[in-house]
């Protein structure tokens, strides 16, 4: 609330939407200013925009820049905090005619618009030489390959809907074995509640509500329903009883959170597991970083469940680098080198260990990785269990509309039939 600047908020929105005009001029000026001191460099120089700014993330980026340097390139780091911010910086610079060498996006349809505008360089040559078709998971391939051209190089795979549990809390509540199904999970949650603990550590923020929903959809609904709803946007599937059951199970979980849950950050929720105050959390594999910081080890102080049953889908979310269009041969050389370095098995393992993700390929030496990552890699080897995150199938707009409905359902008493109708309308 900065009061005296008249209309500054709507103005900012408007200026931002006038990208083509204002930004073009500004960025061109910035380009002129930046280009001046740089001479021709012999080593391929890659300026990379990304949003990996936290401690563990920076360490992970360092493994990339080290690998790139070892391959003979120069890495220029352009870290911009927050994904949205970093992406809009990248887009503005691309439109402004001063593109970075590479820019981070999620493994999603976020960069589809820029592909359609012809603003990216395809990496077909590298993809053919390195054999991307052979080692990339189908779901990832379908995202990076648009109309037969390879527009992005995948960097990592995160699975957003892991189920984490605190062994100390389970012991206190007298839960002997790891839950093997959703029914057993509910039984465990009841026991935790009876023991006076917070059964479900949850941060009541829209995206975290969405993670819980995703976990329920894969485990209770299953692969078929998941794809029908999120990929095919099938009306009948959304109106089906099976999907209604998914929504009701999702809502049932809400009864296990503590009162202070709304607004809590995800890492504070993870801390409740670390201290043994809460039993279970649904969260992506980046939560491992919090456990590691607290000196806890997977399988010893905490457990991780990727899904229930031998056929549970493994959701693929992750990050890619895209390569903005340029005709400068130096820059194109840098882009090709980067695309090749990132997918190499050694880089992938080093990066994943620091990042908490799993490699984009399964033909790597997993012995140095933790048990959760090994479990994830083992599942990934079965192609029929790979499945994309909602972002992979839906536009950011549809995905956001879906998230709005789900978070409203989680927080309010809305009839489930209305939620089904709203989702059908949002995904139309």
């Amino acid at each position, binding site marked *: *609330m*900065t*009061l*005296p*600047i*008249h*209309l*500054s*908020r*709507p*103005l900012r*929105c*408007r*200026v*931002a*939407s*006038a*990208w*083509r*005009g*204002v930004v073009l001029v500004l960025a061109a000026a910035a380009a002129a200013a930046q280009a001046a001191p740089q001479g021709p460099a012999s080593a391929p120089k890659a300026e990379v925009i990304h949003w990996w700014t936290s401690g563990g993330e920076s360490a992970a980026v360092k493994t990339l820049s080290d690998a790139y340097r070892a391959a003979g390139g120069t890495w220029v780091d352009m870290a911009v905090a927050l994904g*949205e*911010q970093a*992406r*809009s910086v990248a*887009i503005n610079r691309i*439109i402004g005619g001063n593109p970075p060498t590479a820019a981070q996006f999620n493994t999603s349809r*976020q960069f589809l*618009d*820029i592909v359609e*505008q012809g603003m990216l360089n395809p990496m077909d040559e590298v993809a053919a030489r390195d054999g991307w078709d052979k080692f990339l998971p189908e779901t990832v391939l379908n995202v990076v390959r648009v109309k037969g051209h390879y527009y992005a190089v995948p960097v990592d795979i995160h699975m957003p809907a892991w189920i984490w549990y605190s062994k100390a809390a389970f012991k206190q509540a007298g839960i002997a074995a790891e839950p093997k199904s959703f029914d057993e999970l509910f039984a465990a949650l009841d026991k935790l509640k009876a023991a006076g603990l917070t059964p479900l550590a949850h941060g*009541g*923020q*829209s995206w975290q*509500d969405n993670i819980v929903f995703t976990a329920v959809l894969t485990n209770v609904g299953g692969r078929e329903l998941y794809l029908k709803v999120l990929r095919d946007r099938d009306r009948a599937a959304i109106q089906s009883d099976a999907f209604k059951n998914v929504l009701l199970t999702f809502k049932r979980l809400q009864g296990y959170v*503590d*009162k*202070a*849950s*709304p*607004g809590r950050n995800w890492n504070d929720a993870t801390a409740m597991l670390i201290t043994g105050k809460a039993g279970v959390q649904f969260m992506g594999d980046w939560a491992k970083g919090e456990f590691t910081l607290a000196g806890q080890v997977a399988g010893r102080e905490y457990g991780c469940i990727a899904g229930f049953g031998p056929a549970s889908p493994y959701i693929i979310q992750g990050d890619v680098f895209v390569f903005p269009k340029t005709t400068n041969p130096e820059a194109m050389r840098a882009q090709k080198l980067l695309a090749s370095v990132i997918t190499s098995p050694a880089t992938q393992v080093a990066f994943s260990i620091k990042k908490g993700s799993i490699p984009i390929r399964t033909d790597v030496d997993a012995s140095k990785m933790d048990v959760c990552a090994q479990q994830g890699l083992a599942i990934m080897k079965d192609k029929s269990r790979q499945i994309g995150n909602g972002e992979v199938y839906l*536009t*950011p*707009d549809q*995905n*956001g*509309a879906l998230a*709005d409905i789900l*978070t*409203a359902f*989680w*927080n*309010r008493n809305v009839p489930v039939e209305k939620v089904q109708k*709203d989702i059908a309308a949002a995904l139309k």
Partner: protein
Amino acid sequence: MTTTRAGRRRLRRLVPWGALLPMALTVLVGYLGTALWSLRVSLSSSRTFPQDDFVGLAQYERLFTNERWLLSLQNLAVYGVLFIAACMVIGFLLAVFIDQKVQGEGLLRTVFLYPYAMSFVATGLVWQWVLNPGSGLQEAVRRMGWPEFSFDWIIDQDKVIYTIVIASVWQASGLVMALMLAGLRGIDEDLWKAARIDGIPAWRVYLSIVLPMLGSTVATVFVLLFTGVVKVFDSVVSMTQGGPGTASDVPAKFIMDHLFGRANIALASAGSMVLLATVLALVAPVLYARSRGAAGKGLQ
């Protein structure tokens, strides 16, 4: 000789226009130009990039069937009325209080104005901690011996918007005080003497004589607060992120989400046009009345 004098006179007449030119250009390009641009985008099917097509009022239709947008408008109305009223009353009372020539006036003035000097991104976080039932005020009072005490508005669907009002009033009422105080200090001392001789109680003087004399100050404060209401964003983002669920959502947050995160600049532009129309509809009459008043005074 006469020609040069005429030329000089003409030049002198042109100088003010020349001085105004940069500002006029800023207004034309920076304000009007971009507003028209937004209007154009809001009538297209643009996603990440502006498109040249024309879809009529489809985006507005979508906007007004969107529950989140309607809720955010409703929140804005509740927030706006309460925030402006509370700021006006508290700000005026604080100004009257300081106007009593209290000791340590400078210190008090700084204290009251200080919240305004800090970014809400930081203070909003502190407010979040204070209002959080698990860690903040509620827990503190309970430990002090009132275990039944409950203050959990920030996690309550129906009351969360009031916590935003409380925090915003805390921030902005100091500014209202400063402006009102300046107005109070401009009032002739003789008026007070006359009132005292007539034996009129002080509260009555403030209410019936001073307040009407502060008319233009009040109007300024209103316009300032009103624009603050329309663009309220940082307090919501730093305190609740629009939650729980979408319960404390406001239009500016809806617009920002769609502008960047959801890559739908057409819908975002439609939203900002609705906001602009709201501002014009409510502030234009005030500004018009003020300009009429100023013109009237100029004539006398």
